[in-house]
């Protein structure tokens, strides 16, 4: 192999590796992240961030026995709700953005909304604030995981 051929092969190989790495990083980033934020007067603020790619991978590798246990714990009610949850997860992911639910009382406020990549749940009261950002891809995967059962 001439030095020129070797250099071309090495450059091509490196380009392929970089391209694959870019694809992997793109997929990882596009999966978004689950954010859980809890702040209250009685405890320190908690902010948990879990990459959506991890959630999707976790759903793929979730043992069948664990899901069967969930089914058993939920009983008939859980089985009846499963198709609804499955359909809702899939439909929400493809729905337009907007504020879906707002419940306001003197004591607290609950808002469920959707942005381009996340389903947002906010619960605000005098004592506590909880914010949840669920990546739509994870929600979609959750629906598909339910559908696969």
């Amino acid at each position, binding site marked *: 192999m001439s030095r020129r051929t070797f250099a071309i092969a090495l450059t091509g190989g490196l380009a392929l590796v970089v391209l694959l790495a870019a694809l992997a990083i*793109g997929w990882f980033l596009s999966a978004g992240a689950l954010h859980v934020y809890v702040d209250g007067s009685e405890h320190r603020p908690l902010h948990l961030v879990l990459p959506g790619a991890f959630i999707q991978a976790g759903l793929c590798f979730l043992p069948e026995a664990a899901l069967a246990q969930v089914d058993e714990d939920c009983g008939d009610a859980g089985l009846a709700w499963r198709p609804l949850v*499955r*359909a809702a997860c*899939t*439909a*929400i992911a*493809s*729905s337009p953005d907007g504020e879906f639910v707002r*419940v306001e009382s003197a004591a607290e406020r609950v808002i469920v909304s959707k942005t*381009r990549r996340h389903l947002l749940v906010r619960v605000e009261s005098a004592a506590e604030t909880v914010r949840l950002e669920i990546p739509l891809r994870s929600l979609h995967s959750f629906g598909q995981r339910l559908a696969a059962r």
Partner: protein
Amino acid sequence: MHKVLLSALALVCLSGPGVAASEAETEHWLHVRVLDGEDKIAVNLPIELVAAVLDAAESEHYRHGRLVVDDHEFDHELVSAMLSAAVKSKDGEFVRIEEADGALIRVHKEKDTLFVDIDDDEEDVKVAIPIAVARAMLDGESETLNVKAALEEMGKRGGALVTIDDGESTVRVWVDASMEGI
């Protein structure tokens, strides 16, 4: 090289459900507003989302988007015939019941919509049923009401469905093309 990287990143980013979301076109939204003193509930859901969930629901009395009516007093053919007659009729008041306690129940037709108004001392209920929606609901098997078809028909036209006002609280259900609701 950075152009290739950017293209690859864009390709991956565009392959997610986020694209489906941005491309999705919802013509109409189902809105529910409940005002009860200081409590306020606002629900705005795309018709497609509601239809998908309705389609998935299964129970003893509900399957494949259809409500199973066990009540033998519900005569599917009679209701269909009454609806056809209503379509051919001119606008006006079809039923008027004035009860001893002052309650007034009216069924009337205006253009392509049937209205049921119940007005008594405690509450004021107004239900508007577009005739096309009622027809869609009666479409299909007897002893069933096709809720999903009715919702989809409602999604095509929009308008008020239910208004309830009992003096202390109000409930409004309607369909329109805006996410926020009017």
